[in-house]
């Protein structure tokens, strides 16, 4: 196996190609995913490899697209919907929340919806408030949806293949800044699957447990590199899926470090990181905490446009570094 360093776009494309080769019922639908290759280039050449039926361009019609995917999923297909910007899921919310998420439960188990909804999420591209949100918390609050947030090309490929295998609707939130960046680890050729609902401990350090999702994972890793030089050692945990959520490694790590920081790009109020904190507060690791939990999240504002404003709105590496340094120094 060669040591291939792919971008997340390439890794996602590879996963979709593998799935389409493995299963004739897998197809992709979305806006500009055909000849155009996707707004962020994720589908790339798949249209030429698999044809217009299976890499299906749609009109700008998010509710219709997701609804068609739900109906197809109920009828033997495994659709992958690409939503150009996760903000546009708002247009399709009825089909995601009232239909896809609930059908299996409501009808008593006779039907199921094997559907993957991939969406480009997050800020950092200067696209302002309607093209930059991190909405994963919306979906995590809807029983019946699984919510995946890949943090690297390696994770993206393995998680997407598992999401496509899953018999339930899976929301797959891809941070758009990650699309073009090669990851820290090689992406194996061929199929491999990362199970949904298993947190990953990326590095272990004795001083502070950092739980981060999506792009915040790489920022937490960069912060950990920096702090290591100062003699502060971080454990970084990527839950990878926020629904279902695997708390085991988080509890285990808190027992060792006694300190917890949770980092997300989404606004703090009502955000998913609060669920992690609530579980810690009500779970087996509470007694091990030596310090107040650190919440590091996006400001409670729409994502602004100007680069310095946009950057200020969400946690950066230096924020993680300073808050981590502070909590470790103040709570010995």
């Amino acid at each position: 196996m060669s040591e291939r360093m792919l971008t997340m776009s390439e890794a996602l494309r590879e996963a979709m190609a593998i799935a389409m080769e493995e299963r004739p019922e897998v197809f992709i639908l979305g806006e500009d995913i055909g000849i155009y290759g996707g707004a962020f280039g994720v589908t790339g050449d798949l249209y030429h490899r698999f044809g217009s039926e299976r890499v299906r361009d749609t009109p700008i019609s998010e509710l219709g697209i997701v609804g068609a995917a739900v109906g197809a999923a109920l009828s033997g297909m495994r659709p992958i919907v690409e939503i150009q910007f996760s903000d546009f899921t708002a247009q399709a919310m009825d089909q995601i929340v009232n239909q896809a998420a609930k059908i299996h439960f409501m009808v008593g188990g006779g039907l199921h919806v094997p559907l993957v909804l991939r969406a480009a999420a997050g800020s950092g591209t200067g696209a302002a408030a309607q093209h930059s949100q991190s909405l994963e918390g919306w979906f995590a609050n809807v029983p019946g949806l699984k919510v995946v947030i890949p943090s690297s090309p390696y994770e993206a490929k393995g998680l997407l293949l598992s999401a496509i295998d899953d018999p339930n609707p899976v929301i797959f939130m891809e941070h758009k800044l990650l699309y073009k960046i090669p990851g820290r680890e090689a992406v194996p050729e061929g199929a491999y699957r990362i199970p949904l609902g298993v947190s990953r401990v990326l590095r272990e350090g004795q001083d502070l447990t950092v739980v981060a999702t999506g792009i915040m994972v790489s920022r937490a890793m960069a912060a950990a590199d920096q702090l290591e030089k100062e003699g502060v050692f971080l454990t970084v945990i990527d839950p990878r899926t926020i629904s279902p959520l695997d708390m085991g490694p988080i509890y285990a790590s808190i027992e060792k470090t006694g300190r917890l920081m949770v980092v997300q790009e989404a606004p703090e109020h009502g955000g998913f990181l609060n669920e992690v904190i609530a579980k810690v507060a009500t779970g087996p690791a509470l007694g091990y905490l030596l310090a107040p939990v650190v919440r590091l999240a996006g400001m409670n504002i729409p994502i602004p446009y100007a680069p310095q404003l946009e950057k200020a709105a969400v946690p950066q590496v230096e924020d993680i570094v300073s808050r981590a340094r502070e909590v470790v120094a103040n709570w010995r």
Partner: protein
Amino acid sequence: MTTAVLKTGDPLASQENARYALLTMSRIRKLEEAVEDLFGRGMMHGTMHLSIGQEATATGVCMALEVSDQITSTHRGHGHCVAKGADLTSMIAELLGKESGYCHGRGGSMHIADVATGNLGANGIVGGGIPIAIGAALASKMLNRGTVAVSFFGDGAMNEGAFHEAANLAAIWKLPVILVCENNGYGMSSSTDLAFAINTLAERGLGYGIPGFTVDGNDVAAVYEATRIAVARAKAGEGPTLLEFVTYRWKGHSRSDKNLYRTKEEIDEWKKKDPILFFEHLVRDKNLLSDVEIAEVHAEATAQVIHAVNEAMKGVPADPAGLLAAVFKDLDSKEVSS
């Protein structure tokens, strides 16, 4: 026996077909009358949306379909469910919140689906089933199944964005789907006169490149014939058809309805156009069924519904113990904490 095997064919083509059409309409009406009675006596909870007066549309449409053809239904979906061949006992059991109900008590009236008869489910969201039917038709086309999908929806749904997006996708992809609008005159309390600025709802098809037809929805034979033509078009690869069936709901929208938005005279006028009575006249005139045979059909429907209610009553109440495990299919992921 409370299940009927779907019969395909013209309601007026034979005595057998006429009998089936009348029995189906009668089963729908008796079932809904029983449901209304059970609600009235406090034996059912929640809400209910009755389709009494609209039985011909469900029956006529489904008689033009095969069992393998799929439907999506609405909050007012008991008739579609019965006409597609659902089991009455499992339906009533669901409404009674029994474990033996179609949804094991998790869905109730607005969420009954029946995979065996191609019923992808009623829907509590107005217009929610239309894009789903488009997807079912897309799957049929991609898998070369040769089946059609029918989306039942009311006049109210035609003003939802879901109708617009679904109709457009159906048209551009030439999908084997039939958009069936049951125009019963009211979206809850708003009349079609207030909610539309067009003469017939079928005209909307033009804007999508979909042929649209307005048909008497209380004439089961006319409903069948219009649907048959639409099915033939769909199966020939000619794409979707929009059918507007003009009908009327005799009962209120739901239990809370005090009928303040329409007159008793209007309701009485429509009761004279009872689809069941209309069909009885027709089959008598055509010597397909005698008065005695007609009475026998209704007695059979009544007996089936009584049997279904009695059987359903025997079921055990739905069990909360299974709820968490029912959210996902094959819950195999490791949820360490909860």
